[in-house]
């Protein structure tokens, strides 16, 4: 009787272990399929020095007005797809002629144009 209970306990323990392992594997797969997200510290592009390049970058990566664009701490461009997933488009510097952030908004560009006349 006692050995029967021990056997049942072992089977139960094994069952729980297998279920737990399955859940871990499932979580790992889920995590892997969603691993492509902007890393912590990423900011909306309009809050970064790349703000002046916002329109040009969006045009080059083919993003709609509603698609979020973020810049990660390493200067990479991340664009959100219509289904909510994200794509890493690489260094923002690769999307500008100078390789440097414009850093200007429309108002700043106007000031510069007036200054240059």
């Amino acid at each position, binding site marked *: 009787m006692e050995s029967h209970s021990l056997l049942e306990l072992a089977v139960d323990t094994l069952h729980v272990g297998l279920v737990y392992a399955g859940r871990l594997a499932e979580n790992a797969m889920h995590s892997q399929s969603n691993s492509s997200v902007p890393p912590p510290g990423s900011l909306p592009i309009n809050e970064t020095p790349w703000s002046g390049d916002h329109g040009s970058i969006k045009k*080059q990566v*083919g993003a709609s*007005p509603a698609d979020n664009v973020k810049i990660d701490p390493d200067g990479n461009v991340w664009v959100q*797809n219509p*289904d909510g997933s994200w*794509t890493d*488009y*690489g*260094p923002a510097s690769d999307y500008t002629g100078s390789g440097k952030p414009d850093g200007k908004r*429309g108002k700043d560009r106007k000031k510069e144009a007036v200054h240059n006349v």
Partner: protein
Amino acid sequence: MFDIGILIQHPSIDPDKITAGLCAKPTSMCRSGDRVVTPKGRETGDRHRWTSWSYFESDDSLSSNEKIRLILKKIQDAASLISIVSKEGGKATLIIRHDSSDYANCELNPEALTLLARLSVTVGFEVFAE
């Protein structure tokens, strides 16, 4: 001056099919599943999850309204393709962008809005000036 264009986004469509359907050389294009490569030829290690195809009218001698008319003509001519894009979970957007401090104007008349609504085309506005 407005920047006027059409953007097609779809989970899997072949972008060459869009190029053929809209009879236009794309301003930007990427294929779902392809590796992401920057304009300077650098691979990011990521892959495109969606196909994206855009075409912007680049002739700056045209007024914004003339640009809109040309884009609408392309949309009308490719009506069957654009309907399929919407039905398959994709998205077509007429993009109207303004990125200078200069005055600009344009309008979408009722016929244009009817066409866009019939084909489930979103109209997206974006202003980068302050």
